[in-house]
């Protein structure tokens, strides 16, 4: 990508889907965390991965919150805020922004 970082373009483009921040590098950061969780506080790395700092549903001094640095003492977010968690399935297939499928099965004709 000559002008912009792919991770930034990817995130900006897919923001139109209203599904949140699209991560160009969706793999958890090795040796930092195994899976992203509700309550995680962090930031995006230049390569498009999420860097987890700590999780506010856990105590500030929980071992998993001390992997990078020990955070300042904070009041844990009470669990009752997480009682109503909605689960849903995202369908199989493409999620696009300014990109379309081209029919290349037979005549390979695409009408724009």
């Amino acid at each position: 990508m000559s002008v912009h970082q792919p991770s930034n373009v990817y995130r900006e483009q897919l923001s139109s889907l209203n599904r949140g921040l699209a991560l160009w590098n969706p793999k958890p950061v090795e040796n930092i965390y195994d899976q992203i969780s509700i309550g995680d506080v962090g930031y995006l790395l230049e390569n498009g991965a999420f860097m987890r700092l700590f999780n506010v549903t856990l105590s500030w001094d929980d071992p998993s919150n001390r992997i990078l640095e020990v955070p300042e003492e904070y009041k844990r977010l009470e669990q009752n805020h997480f009682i109503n968690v909605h689960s849903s399935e995202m369908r199989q297939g493409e999620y696009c922004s300014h990109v379309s499928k081209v029919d290349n099965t037979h005549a390979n004709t695409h009408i724009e």
Partner: protein
Amino acid sequence: MVLSSFNLLIFLFGRGMGQMYECQDQTYGALLYLPHGGHSKDVIRTKAFEEYIKDNVDSWFRWLKRKNFPVQRMEDLILVTGCTLATSWAAAVFDNNNMPTAGSDSATISLDIQKSNRDREQFFWRNNRGNVEYHNSYFEPVSFPVVFSRRGL
């Protein structure tokens, strides 16, 4: 799909080329493909987070600066209120900015997905035209990639 114009584009391909994708914008485009879909979890009442964030974000940001984390602005901090996890994915970014004739040619790519002997997907890309960056997941049973995260900060 509503057709906004009637430019007819014709492409010729051999068999086994997979699905072709074309950027429709004069600047950029993006593609995410999920062979098995994804599973989403979201906090319903995100309002409950707002007071908590107001109470804490200043001290978190000061702590980040003091520890030299690469966070320049307070708004770069993310509190996750939901996410979508997927075990298998393919992603691409299209750049149409440097195409030789603006508007006539578009960055295109083909993606072919085949089952491996472990019943997992293998992704085969072909950059047909223009500037496209792409990558995909590999079989990693202990990894739970998040393709989207929702933020409260």
